[in-house]
C-alpha cells in the first residue's frame, strides 16, 4: 500500500515536471511582488527615512575589508540621509555571498554595491535586484558590466600590475634572475589582470627576468602564502624576487623570507596594507607594499551610491569630497579612484589601515 502511495507521488511529480510546469515566476506572488517593487519611492524596510545603501564585501573580518567598512560608515555619517549597511559572508564563498544579497533584496534597500567573489555567480541575483527596482553597483572587483549602473575601481588594473613589476625590479636591483608570482585565489579576476599586466611588463621591458612557475594560489591566507614561499625558497635556491598579489600573500611571503634571513637575497613586492606590512618593511623582508586606501574606496562607493540613487552619474575629473579627483572611463560607468600608492619603510607608519 505504502509503495503504491510513493509511486503515485513520484508519478505526479514527474508528470508535473515533464508537462513543463516549472515556470520562471511563481503565479501567486507576482502581483504582490509588483506592488512591492517601488524601489526608491517605496518605504524602506528599516522604516527609517533616507537612502539605504548596502555595501557587500567578498568577506567580512579581514583587515582590508574592515578598513573599507570604516570608510563606508564614515561616508554614511558625512552624507545627508544615507544609511549604510555593510554586510558580507564570513567566508569568501560565492554561495554564501549570494544569500547575503538575497536577504538585502528582501530588506528592500535602495542601492546594492557588491565586490563579487565570483562575478558569474552573482548575475542571477543582481538581475533579480534590478527587477525589484534596486540600483546595482560593483566595487573592488568588477561584476558583469551589463548589469551594473556604476563600477567603482580602486586603480587602473593595467597600470597597477605594471607598477608592481617595476617596483620588484627596482627592489631586486638587477634586471636578471628568477622570480615567482603568488596570488590569492586563481579565479579572482582583478588579481589575474594585475598578474597579466605584470607579466607583460616583464616580457616587454625586462627580458632577463624568468618566472619560475605558474602563478601559485594561496587561498587568501597568510599561513598558506608563508608555507608556499618556504617551499619556493627550497626548490629555487637562486630565487631573487617574489611578486605577491592579494593582501595576505605578501605578508606570508615576507614572513618566510624573514625567517630564512634572506632579506638581502630575495626581494618581495606585493599588494598589502601598510599597518600589516610595517613589521616586514622594517627589516626589508618586504620591500614595497603597493595598494590604495581601502577606506577611501568604501567611502567613494557610498558617495557614488548616493549619487546613483538620486539620479546623477559621476563625471570624468569630478572632485569627490573626502576622496579626491576621480577618473571615469569612456563607458561612463567605470570609475577609477586614483593612482596606486606605495608604502615603504619610510611612510608605512603614517597610515591607520
Amino acid at each position: 500500500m505504502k509503495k503504491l502511495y510513493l509511486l503515485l507521488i513520484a508519478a505526479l511529480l514527474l508528470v508535473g515536471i515533464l508537462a513543463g510546469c516549472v515556470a520562471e515566476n511563481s503565479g501567486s506572488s507576482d502581483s504582490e511582488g509588483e506592488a512591492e517593487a517601488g524601489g526608491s519611492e517605496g518605504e524602506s524596510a528599516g522604516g527609517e527615512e533616507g537612502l539605504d545603501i548596502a555595501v557587500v564585501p567578498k568577506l567580512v573580518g579581514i583587515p582590508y575589508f574592515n578598513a573599507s567598512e570604516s570608510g563606508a560608515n564614515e561616508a554614511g555619517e558625512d552624507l545627508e540621509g544615507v544609511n549604510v549597511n555593510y554586510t558580507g559572508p564570513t567566508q569568501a564563498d560565492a554561495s554564501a555571498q549570494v544569500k547575503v544579497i538575497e536577504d538585502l533584496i528582501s530588506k528592500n534597500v535602495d542601492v546594492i554595491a557588491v565586490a563579487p567573489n565570483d562575478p558569474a555567480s552573482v548575475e542571477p541575483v543582481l538581475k533579480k535586484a534590478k527587477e525589484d527596482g534596486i540600483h546595482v553597483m560593483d566595487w573592488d572587483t568588477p561584476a558583469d558590466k551589463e548589469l551594473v549602473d556604476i563600477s567603482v575601481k580602486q586603480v587602473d588594473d593595467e597600470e597597477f600590475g605594471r607598477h608592481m613589476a617595476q617596483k620588484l625590479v627596482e627592489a631586486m636591483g638587477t634586471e636578471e634572475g628568477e622570480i615567482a608570482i603568488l596570488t590569492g585565489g586563481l579565479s579572482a579576476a582583478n588579481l589575474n589582470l594585475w598578474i597579466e599586466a605584470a607579466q607583460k611588463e616583464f616580457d616587454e621591458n625586462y627580458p632577463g627576468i624568468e618566472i619560475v612557475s605558474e602563478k601559485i594560489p594561496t587561498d587568501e591566507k597568510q599561513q598558506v602564502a608563508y608555507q608556499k614561499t618556504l617551499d619556493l625558497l627550497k626548490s629555487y635556491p637562486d630565487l631573487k624576487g617574489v611578486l605577491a598579489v592579494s593582501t595576505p600573500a605578501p605578508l606570508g611571503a615576507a614572513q618566510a623570507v624573514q625567517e630564512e634571513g634572506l632579506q638581502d637575497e630575495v626581494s618581495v613586492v606585493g599588494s598589502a596594507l601598510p599597518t600589516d606590512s610595517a613589521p616586514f618593511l622594517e627589516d626589508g623582508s618586504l620591500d614595497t607594499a603597493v595598494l590604495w586606501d581601502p577606506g577611501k574606496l568604501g567611502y567613494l562607493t557610498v558617495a557614488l551610491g548616493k549619487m546613483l540613487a538620486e539620479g546623477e552619474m559621476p563625471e570624468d575629473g569630478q572632485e569627490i569630497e573626502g576622496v579626491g579627483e576621480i577618473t571615469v572611463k569612456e563607458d561612463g560607468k567605470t570609475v577609477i579612484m586614483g593612482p596606486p600608492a606605495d608604502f615603504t619603510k619610510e611612510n608605512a607608519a603614517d597610515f591607520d589601515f
Partner: protein
Amino acid sequence: MKLSKESILGLIALGTFFILALIAPGFLSSNNITSMMFQLPEFGLIALAMMVVIVTGGIDLSITYIAALSGVGAALMLTNGYGILPAIIVAILFALACGAFNGFVISKIGVSPILVTLGTMVLFEGIILAITKGNSISGFSDGYSLIGNGYYLGLVPLSIVIFVLFAIITAVLLSKTSWGRSVYMYGSNETATLFSGVKNSRVLMKVYLYASLLAAISAIIMTSRYNSVKVDLGSSYLLQSVAAAVLGGTNIHGGYGKVIGTVYAVMIFQFIRNGLNLLGFHSSLVDVVIGAILILVLAMNFFSDKFKKVAETRKAEKAA
C-alpha cells in the same frame, strides 16, 4: 507528555520562526519566504548527506568538494552544448565516482573516515583546479537555470520540492530498508553488526555513495541557481552541515540520527541567518548566535541523556 529530541527541535524551529517574524522587518513578506525556500535546499541536501555518514560514526570532509566537482561535471557538459539531462547524469556520475573512491578506501581498506575524506578533500580540490585552473565555468542555458530558480506548478520553488523529495527518500531508506537498519547497527557497534552476518563493507560503501549522490543533487541546484561553478562552490557548508546534523540530534559517535531532526536544524539555521541579516546584524555575530544555539542544544541533550541514565539506574536499584 514525553517529547522526543526531534519534536523539541521542531518546537525550537517554530519558536525561532515566530520570534523572527515579530522582530525582523520583512521576514514574513512573500518575497522573503520564497527567497528562504530558494536558499534552503542546497544546504539541506549537504546536511542530509553528512547526517547519513555521521550515523555510521564516520564523517565526510570531502562532501562540499564532491559537490563542486560534480557541478564542474555538469558545467562542462552544458558549456559544450549537451542538454540538461546528460549534464545531470554526468554530475551524478562524477559524484558517485568520488563517493566510490571514499567508500572503497574506508570500507575495503579500513582507513578511518576522517583521514580518508581529509585526504580526498584536497584530492578533489586538486582535480577541480586542474580542470578549471581556478576560474569559474559559467553561462548555462535558461532551461537549466529553472532547476534552481524556477517554480514548480507556479507555486513553490522547484528546488524545495526536490529537497523534500530527497528528505523523504532518505528517511524511507534509513528506517524502512534492511540497508538502513544495518547503517544504524553499524554506527552503534560495528563488531556486533559484523558478527550478526551483515556485510559491513557493503553497507559502508553504499553510505558514501548515497552521500555523494545527495551532494550531486545539491550541486545541480547550486550550479543552476548561481549559473556558475567554481572550486570553492558551497565550501562554507562543510562544517555547517556537521553542525546541522549534530544539532538535529545525530549522535556524532554514530548509531542514532533522524532525517526530520536534521531538516529542523537546517530550518533553524536558515531562519536565524536570514532573520539576523534582515535585522542588519554583522555576519560574524550571526555565526556567534548559531554557535551559541548549537552549544546550548548539545548541552541540553547531554544533560537530558545523563538525567535519563541516572533515573534508569535508580529504577534498577529499586528493583534489585
